[in-house]
């Protein structure tokens, strides 16, 4: 890294610690509705250049959404604030592990939030799967077409969730928002376990169909 570059990033860091100059920065960046490509580029910039400005922009986009998502899970505002901050620090540390060809920035950040929540609230780890080399054969490797697909995936999924029969949607949303296993959901709703299992299976199958064969 050149001296000039170092000085530049130091100046930028200084800049970011002053809230007012940061605010003016954001206005000029017009990222009201960033695409997945924008967000991926920010994460890669963090990974490669430890770019704090890119991080601030990513924070701007995700922190309020992470907080709202966490509040829906019934977490108190102060705990939610803490969880979001810890999650964003993990985003900074783990940026190099983000791979845009394997999923959208939101999917990746969702898993970081999930793991951090388990770490903070349950003092447990969430072991991550890592498909062994050789198993990821060419026919499923995401190509250019699939990346476009990934960009639209969020819209398609959202619509598909809305289209689910109420009984299936209720249980799937409860799984994500109320931090309950399917067994706990059955108990909570006073439903037989078998009913909850079959609603999950039907719902997930419908969602899968809506995504088509691009998996």
């Amino acid at each position, binding site marked *: 890294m050149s001296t000039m570059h170092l000085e530049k990033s130091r100046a930028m860091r200084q800049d970011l610690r002053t809230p007012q100059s940061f605010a003016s920065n954001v206005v000029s960046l017009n990222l009201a509705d960033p695409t997945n490509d924008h967000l991926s580029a920010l994460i890669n910039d963090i990974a490669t250049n430890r770019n704090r400005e890119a991080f601030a922009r990513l924070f701007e986009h995700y922190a309020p959404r992470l907080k709202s998502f966490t509040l829906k899970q019934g977490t108190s505002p102060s705990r939610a604030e803490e969880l979001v901050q810890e999650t964003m620090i993990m985003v900074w540390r783990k940026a190099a592990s983000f791979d845009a060809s394997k999923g959208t920035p939101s999917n990746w950040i969702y898993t970081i939030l999930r793991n951090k929540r388990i770490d903070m609230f349950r003092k447990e780890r969430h072991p991550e799967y890592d498909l062994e080399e050789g198993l990821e054969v060419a026919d499923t490797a995401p190509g250019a077409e699939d990346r476009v697909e990934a960009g639209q995936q969020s819209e398609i999924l959202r619509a598909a969730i809305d289209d689910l029969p109420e009984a299936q949607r209720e249980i799937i*949303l409860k799984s994500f928002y109320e931090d309950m296993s399917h067994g706990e959901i059955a108990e909570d709703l006073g439903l037989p376990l078998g009913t909850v299992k079959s609603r999950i*299976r039907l719902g997930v199958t419908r969602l899968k169909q809506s995504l088509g064969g691009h998996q």
Partner: protein
Amino acid sequence: MITHHPDTELLLDYATGALTEPMALSVACHASLCKACASELKRLEALGGTLLEQSDKAQMDATSLNAVLNRLDDPEPEPLRPSAQFDAESLRVLPMPLRDYLPASLEALNWRHIGSKVSQYNLDLHVGNYKISLMRFKAGSAQPIHTHKGQEITLVLTGGYTDQGHHFEVGDFDLKDTRHKHQPVVDSGEDCYALVVMDAPVVLAGPFSRFLNPFIKL
């Protein structure tokens, strides 16, 4: 070929973070060996990503961003345990998620031998009543008949076995509960390594079981 997978609802629980660590470990190990379930988990996590992306924006504290920026250069916490250097055999046998839970290569682990046909190593992972073990069953051996008070998950890592007419091989996710009484017979040819997660003790069901039970602390 993998023919036994975790149910969809178990995969959903993994994706939402509702599984306990031992259960999540068994699912993660399976999905490291099973392309179909890895894809399924990706889809379910994408559902989480979608719900996150479409969330309303809640107001963050005014000082939040600066608080985080000020902490970015803090030293990262030490990992729970230093990662071990594994020999080639261990790398062949152990799927990635399991490696974090072992202090050394397979041969260097402190195995407990149960008779001449079974060895057991208990993972240093303590959650509720769970017992999480790495097991090594001798090729060609028949295991004692037993039932379960709770659930038992066996994830095959090498070799295979046949139980009640079903064959289980590398990557297979074998979930048994109190309804099952079984006596696995291990394939000949190769020892069978397996990750075994139990949430209640095994009950031996064959002759002499009352005598054996106190000694076999499975």
